């Protein structure tokens, strides 16, 4: 059973009287441990695709099976549960809670699955150590650099042992050097922990870190091939 299996996915947005087709007939399979880069120009449907993969949005048509579960049949709260346990999000703008320490930001996903406070603390510390932020537990986001904030976000994505990380332009706000460091972190997570990583990017040198590249254009996948190393 594939980790992610998408069949004839379709997404139509209704904007007033106009129907806007964001995704059309998208079928794709992602296996455990893959590292996929999703590329394409603005409006090509890659963000819509990521939102559906992340269970933040529901497709208009087609099926999305996550570990064999038909996500389209789940209600709002069941989707929240899937997001909590199966998926870690990393965003371009980091999306950390302001005025909240790094440790507490990382603890956040565990607040929603009933883990005891002691375990939360231990796991959050371990996750921060994992991304190289030992000693920064009490720093607030505004006391951290962009790269460090993105590391906190990655720690938050990892802390519930989610098998998938969905990253939406994770290096979009970072300089080249920091971008490379973040990408190396993703590569390490993929290599060592076999975490499946799907990331959206505009830049081909970022996509080069991945093992497989999908290109979107006008709501369809136009190419899907392994990256030559």
């Amino acid at each position, binding site marked *: 059973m594939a980790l992610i299996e998408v069949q004839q996915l379709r997404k139509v947005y209704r904007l007033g009287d106009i129907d806007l087709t964001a995704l059309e007939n998208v079928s794709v399979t992602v296996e455990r441990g893959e590292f996929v880069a999703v590329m394409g120009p603005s409006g090509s449907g890659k963000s819509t695709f990521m*939102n559906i993969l*992340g269970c*933040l*949005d529901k497709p208009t048509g087609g099926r999305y099976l996550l570990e064999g579960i038909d996500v389209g049949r789940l209600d*709002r*709260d069941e989707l*929240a*549960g899937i*997001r*909590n*346990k199966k998926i870690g*999000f990393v*965003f371009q703008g980091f*999306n*950390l*809670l302001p*005025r*909240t320490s790094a440790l*507490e930001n990382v603890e*956040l*996903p565990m*607040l*929603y*699955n*009933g883990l005891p*406070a002691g375990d939360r603390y231990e796991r959050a510390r371990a996750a921060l150590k994992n991304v190289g932020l030992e000693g920064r537990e009490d720093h607030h986001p505004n006391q951290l650099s962009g790269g460090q904030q993105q590391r906190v976000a990655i720690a*938050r994505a990892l802390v*519930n042992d989610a098998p998938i990380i969905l990253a939406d332009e994770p290096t979009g706000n970072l300089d080249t050097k920091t971008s490379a460091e973040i990408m190396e972190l993703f590569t390490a997570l993929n290599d060592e922990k076999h975490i499946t990583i799907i990331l959206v990017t505009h830049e081909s040198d970022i996509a080069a870190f991945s093992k497989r590249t999908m290109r979107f254009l006008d709501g369809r996948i136009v190419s899907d091939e392994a990256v030559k190393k």
Partner: protein
Amino acid sequence: MINIPSTFKISFRALRVNKMRSALTMLGIIIGVGAVIAMVAVGAGASRQIAAQISSMGSNLLIILPGATTAGGVRMGAGTQSTLTMGDAEAIQKECPAVAFVAPTLGGVAQVVSGHLNWSTGVSGTTADMLEVRDWDLTAGRPFTQQDVMSATKVALLGQTVVDSLFGDQDPVGQTIRIKNVPFTVIGVLAPKGQSAQGQDQDDTILIPVTTAQKKLFGTQFPGMVRIIMVKAKSAEDLPAAEKQITELLRQRHRIGQKQDNDFTVRNLTQLMQAREESTKVMTLLLGAIASVSLLVGGIGIMNIMLVSVTERTREIGIRMAIGAKTWDIRLQFIIEAITLSLIGGIIGIFVGVAASLALSSVSGWPTVISPLSILLSFGFSGMVGIFFGFYPAYKASLLNPIDALRYE
């Protein structure tokens, strides 16, 4: 599954981050709860004072006053004519079935001397039933008896104020006092009753047998005449019947024709006081209701702030939803924030209300009674305000679409 302790933690942290705003929002509830408690305390104090006056007066009490004299067409006030007699009192006792006790009184102000001390006080001649009529107990000694009244013995019961003035800490029972130079033996001390509804000191009095008063102290040209007759009805329900029976009996005894006015007045003081007590209760309710309005306004303040907070934190809500917060996680977070605001405000409000009540009674001298019920009620009410006014913002937050919330700038 909702993790309650961590939801509390999330809510408290949000309130801590906006300290000034939280404090100002609470202020509405603090003022509301404080006002309810203080207003109800003032009202309850007033009605307790009246209730105390009613019970000090004696329950189910009727007072019969003689009628007014008419001198050359000028009508004088009630009591200026002496129309009531010992015979009337005895007849009321015998012939009015709704009446339990009758106490005729005759008295006046007299100088009282004991040793080297003297005091001017009201001396009332009455019968042994007076103590029953007025629900009056003795703290020392014995009451005077029917025998004392019949034989006009020179015995006296002293009010606490008289005891304090003439004897200080000494035991007055068995001592001799002189009233208008007539020696009396003190046989008992009346239990303190405090102030009457009119502010008179009810303990500044001496009771002696009515016959003694007539013969030795306040004799008039009409023997057997009394100043007023106090009557205790058998029960509160019997009061109107007693009033009617007494009126009929006295009209008959005084030979008053069909078209003539009474030459006496029957006053139902209990009824009067109860009406006052009722109106005080209404006032308490009104004060409480007005104060509750401020509590309501405080609640609307909470809702206002919570709505602002939800809008401001749309992105935070989006992040929380993305990482797994369920509908009720988000709702509870905001409801708990609202409840926390209102409950902490409520607790501070209780202290403010109690302090205000104490300050009011010490500054203006109003009696205030802080009732635990009003504390409990306003505290509970403030909690309800939190839930009620917190729910809508929380509900609104929980309905946000996570994608839109995440993109919110």
